């Protein structure tokens, strides 16, 4: 039996999206996320797509999974009871943070509350110097007492972070070994030298603690999922999407779940990258809106920007600096609490606010009829006629329009003196403005001109809001790909298998110790290969090595590619020349006669990327007949209009329609604004163009 089918499952805060692909055929489904046991939603969705496709579990050759469970646990503080063990005298580092105000003029800012309270931060006598010499011997006799306190406190996860462990890990490893013997089996232990071996104690400790905090939850979920899939006779290997855009094995994911935060959004960015390549788009704004959040990511020449630092759970007005920093490979994007489930309220100053809190899947928006009482964005979209209840989630989730209207009237309309659809119009206008602002700020921070971008809209919510968002930020073209409603999951199927390992090791480029570097890269490559190979099978992996270099005396580095070969002493000078070339490109000058050094090394082992097909404008075809008509509110015109409803799959490549219109499909609907034309391109994507 040929195991040719591929399965992707993306668990978001509200929906679980499932995509099954077999050759050119694709089936997809959307079910509500089962927060208490997320694997149940996956199984339910999987049954749906199997039924639709007629395939059997045994036909599936590979499963790829991404989830925001780790992110949500961190945001909602629903991780394990975690303890932190650190060098004596330093238990407050994870709370003190950068000791810096992230806004000069706002005197009321809050700093992030650490995941481990002071009462669960324990110290142990030990101290290594920067060069690894022992200043204070590790007090092994104290570990027993520590274990008793950890047990007494009912701690389920332990993070260990010692000073200078990024380079010298033996004290951390020793304490872990001792604790493993003393603690119950179900208590997991993470050490900073494995989770994020990089200099700067706050960020390393913070990453380690966050990893420990979500590990019990994530590990138990992942293994439960594996077992349930096995019970269904689905024995294909299971890979996890990571925040950096690569795939890894279940075992690695269960050890380093912090690398899974933002895995769903990373899948979306990969989908956007593929569409950018297909449609030859130099500048792209990808707009991914789900049930809980909206994600905005910028791509240049088909590549999203990457970073090695990410901030989780920005607690104060979504402001940079107010979250928990983690050092992991990530795709650079901005995420705000604006999804279909985001709750709308009226504040003390009689202003409509939307989010960041979400009704999630339970109880969900009021219209789900699952006990929700506060109106959400989906309720507003329903009240405005933008969602056709017959099509929502393939018609599998019944919607109560009257209840949505009542809740909007009660919580918004009656407090602002608005009637009919106007409270709903206010809610969508605000959520669209919030997203536009986030997109503008993000583009500006990254030096992009947002108006020159093409927007790629996907996720269940984005096609409903894309035209209006495009108008607000000045974008002229919007692409809604096939399967937009489950875009991130489709992105998973396009992701390379990849794993990146990063390690701090200071090496002079003048007096280049090639032997040390070769050894380091060899070890890191072997470690990364061990992670990747089970997923690769027989395909040969590609190897990328990056050295983060700087002039001696600086504190920040630039990424310099390292040739993949056995390095010789003379390669130091070559690396320096490359470093200075890039440095000059970025900063405009070199610093003559100044020594340079490499600080951090990263090795990425990945499968090769496949070149996508090019899209073209299809020959003109007549527009299909609309299936029906609906009254919708058009914000650009500021009034209600009659809009024909087209079934997406009635529209063949080359057919074109004028807004206002609705193009419906199972997992989402594309609202074609009054100022837009919609055309289907050769790949079946909806191309929305603004008439000026």
């Amino acid at each position, binding site marked *: 039996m040929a195991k040719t089918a591929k399965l992707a499952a993306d668990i978001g805060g509200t929906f679980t999206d499932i995509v099954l692909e077999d050759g050119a055929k694709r089936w997809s489904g959307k079910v509500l996320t089962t927060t208490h046991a997320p694997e149940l939603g996956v199984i339910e969705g999987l049954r749906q797509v199997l039924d639709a496709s007629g395939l059997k579990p045994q036909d599936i050759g590979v499963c790829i999974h991404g989830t925001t469970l780790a992110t949500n646990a961190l945001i909602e503080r629903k991780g394990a009871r975690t303890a932190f063990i650190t060098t004596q005298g*330093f238990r407050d580092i994870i*709370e003190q943070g950068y000791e*810096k*105000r992230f806004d000069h*003029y706002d005197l009321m800012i809050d700093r992030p509350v650490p995941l481990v309270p*002071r009462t669960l931060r324990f110290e142990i006598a030990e101290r290594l110097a920067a060069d690894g010499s022992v200043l204070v011997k590790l007090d092994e006799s104290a570990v027993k007492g520590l274990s008793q306190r950890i047990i007494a406190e009912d701690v389920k996860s332990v993070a260990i972070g010692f000073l200078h462990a990024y380079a010298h890990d033996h004290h951390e490893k020793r304490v872990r070994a001792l604790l493993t013997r003393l603690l119950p089996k179900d208590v997991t232990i993470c050490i900073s030298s494995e989770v994020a071996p990089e200099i700067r104690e706050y960020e390393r400790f913070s990453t380690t603690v966050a990893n420990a905090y979500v590990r019990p939850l994530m590990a138990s979920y992942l293994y439960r999922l594996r077992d349930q899939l096995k019970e269904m006779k689905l024995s294909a290997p299971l890979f996890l999407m990571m925040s950096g855009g690569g795939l890894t094995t279940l075992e690695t994911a269960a050890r380093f779940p912090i690398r899974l935060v933002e895995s769903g959004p990373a899948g979306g960015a990969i989908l956007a990258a593929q569409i950018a390549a297909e449609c030859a788009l130099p500048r792209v704004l990808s707009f991914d809106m789900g049930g809980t959040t909206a994600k905005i990511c910028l791509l240049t020449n088909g590549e999203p920007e990457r970073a090695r630092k990410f901030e989780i759970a920005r607690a104060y007005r979504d402001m940079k600096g107010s979250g928990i920093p983690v050092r992991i490979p990530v795709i650079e994007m901005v995420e705000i609490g604006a999804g279909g489930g985001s709750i709308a309220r009226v504040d003390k100053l009689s202003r409509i606010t939307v989010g960041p809190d979400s009704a999630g899947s339970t109880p969900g928006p009021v219209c789900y009829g699952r006990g929700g009482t506060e109106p959400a964005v989906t309720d507003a979209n329903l009240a405005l006629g933008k969602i056709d209840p017959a099509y929502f989630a393939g018609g599998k989730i019944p919607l109560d329009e009257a209840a949505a209207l009542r809740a909007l009237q009660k919580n918004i309309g009656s407090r602002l003196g608005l009637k009919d659809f106007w409270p709903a119009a206010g809610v969508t206008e605000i959520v669209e403005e919030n997203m536009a602002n986030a997109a503008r700020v993000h583009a500006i921070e990254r030096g992009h001109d947002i108006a020159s971008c093409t927007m790629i809209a996907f996720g269940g919510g984005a096609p409903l809001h894309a035209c209006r968002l495009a108008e607000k930020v000045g974008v002229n073209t919007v692409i809604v790909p096939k399967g937009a409603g489950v875009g991130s999951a489709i992105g998973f199927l396009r992701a390379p298998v990849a794993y990146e390992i990063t390690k701090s090791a200071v090496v002079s480029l003048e007096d280049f110790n090639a032997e040390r570097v070769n050894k380091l890269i060899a070890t890191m490559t072997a470690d990364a290969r061990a992670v990747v190979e089970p997923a690769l099978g027989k395909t040969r992996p590609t190897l990328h090595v990056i050295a983060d270099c700087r002039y001696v*005396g600086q504190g920040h580095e630039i990424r310099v590619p390292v040739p993949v070969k056995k390095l010789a002493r003379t390669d130091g000078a070559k690396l320096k020349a490359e470093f200075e070339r890039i440095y000059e490109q970025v900063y405009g*000058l070199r610093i003559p006669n100044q020594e340079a050094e490499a600080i951090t090394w990263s090795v990425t082992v990945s499968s090769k990327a496949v070149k996508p097909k090019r899209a073209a404008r299809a020959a003109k075809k007549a527009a299909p007949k609309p299936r029906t008509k609906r009254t919708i509110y058009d914000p650009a015109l500021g009034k209600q209009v009659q809009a024909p409803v087209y079934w997406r799959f009635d529209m063949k490549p080359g057919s074109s329609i004028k807004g206002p219109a609705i193009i419906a499909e199972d997992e989402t609907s594309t609202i074609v604004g009054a100022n837009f034309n919609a055309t289907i391109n050769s790949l079946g994507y909806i191309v929305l163009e603004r008439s000026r």
Partner: protein
Amino acid sequence: MSKDALAAIRTQVMWNRLIAVVEEQAQSLLRTAFGTITREAGDLSAGVYDPQGNMIAQAMTGTPGHVNTMATAVAHFFKHFPQSTMKPGDVFITNDPWLGTGHLFDYVMMTPVFLGKKLVAFFASTCHVIDVGGVGMSAKANSSFEEGTLIPHSRVRKEGKLNEELLSIILANSRSPVEVRGDILSLISANDTGARRLGDMMTEFGLTSLDALAKHILRQSEKGAREAIKALPEGEWSYEMPLDGYERELTLKSKLIVKNGKITVDFSGTSPASLFGINSPRTYTHAYAVFGLKAVIAPHVPNNIGSLSCFDLITEPGTIVDPIRPSPVTARHVIGQMLADSVFGCLAQALPGTVQAESAGPIWILSLYSAHGRVAPELTAKAKRFAVINMGLGGIGGRPGKDGLATTAFPSGVGTIPVEVTETQCPLYFKRKHYLADSGGAGQWRGGVSQRIEIASTEDAPFAISAATFDRIIHPAQGREGGKPGCVGAAGRGSGTKLPDKGMHIIDAGDSLVLELPGGGGFGKPHKRDRTAVETDIAAGLVTVAAARKDYGYEG
């Protein structure tokens, strides 16, 4: 949409872009700087100016003492170098404390930007370099001549060619020439980065001049500030703060006058200048006094010459807030960073119940040196030479409705420097760095807690510490609305002795430096504090049971 509305949106976009450009300028500086105080703690600033030298936008990255002083620093260059004499590729430099940012350690770099042959803007940036000669990062000099080398307004790059002679003078007068050279080049390249981006922006928007945009920005900002000032009650309020001083205690007097839509702070009656380097030149005084006012009155109005010009200042020459040459000024932030609390003292009377309690004030700059040349040579025979900086940060005052932030710089905008970064630079190590119990002033909203830091050498050798900026050791941060003061600071040795003054002190081999930072004052009466909050503080060890009984009437 009407034409006017579209034009308004376009202006808004260009304004945002300008802020993005200066932010990139600042990030470039942060990422290329050599001095840890710049690259880790963020002691820098960056801004863009119109051709008349008016600051129109500043980066959020940076610190108020730099930003607000730089607002006026650019125009001073024109006396020596009229705009008409400037050429593309020119860069100008100074570290004049009175005409720059208040002490010799900050080089101000100014770069004119040309579009074709037309001067369209200036970029300026500044950062704290590691050493400028003289007595070093110490307040013990009695005149600015002893504090290091002053570079008057000069051209450091002429039409693209570096002025190597000038550079060699600067470097010959520094103990850390490599780092200083790196930082000067970083400043130059940061401005170049800004200039390139501005050029791109002007091309994209088809602009031949920034004048209309600058006018709009300054007018809108001034309008915002004026409206905020108009909302204040009219009247006069005075506040007097006792300060530790260096050779003697000092008095900082302030009077806030709100009248006819104008706001003025009058520091008349404040103590005469100190004999030692803690005096705050008027430009720096202006920076922090206005920062304090703006943070309370108009926090969200953009910071530029338009909004800054709405705040008037009166000082008496020859005082600690307006020293005249050649008064020493190296540790000028010891006075300067008290000014926010000083104006808060007035504002709290004008706007009762809304102004936070006093904070730890000046950041403690931990300037640590090897002891070479300061002790008998045999004691340092085998020791490594070094000069490093770290930060000691205390607590911020309790706020109406929230506790004060623990161990965070205020009003300075800098942050700490990671322990691991400092330890890779020198043979010192931190023995501890943790919260200090009972340091936050009691109150309904507790003052921010401070910390204890202990530092020793890994070598069998002494080291030196400059205590120039260790303040609030005598006078604590006061509480507000019935809140209690925060703890005073303490600086001493592990062996038990106190550091006697703000001078340079030796820590003997085997001994250690022990610092306890000042805590923030409390806000509101302590007995009104939520009992759960009191218990949480006790459980966390931030408040001891004994102190809770005494201060909060805790009965557990």
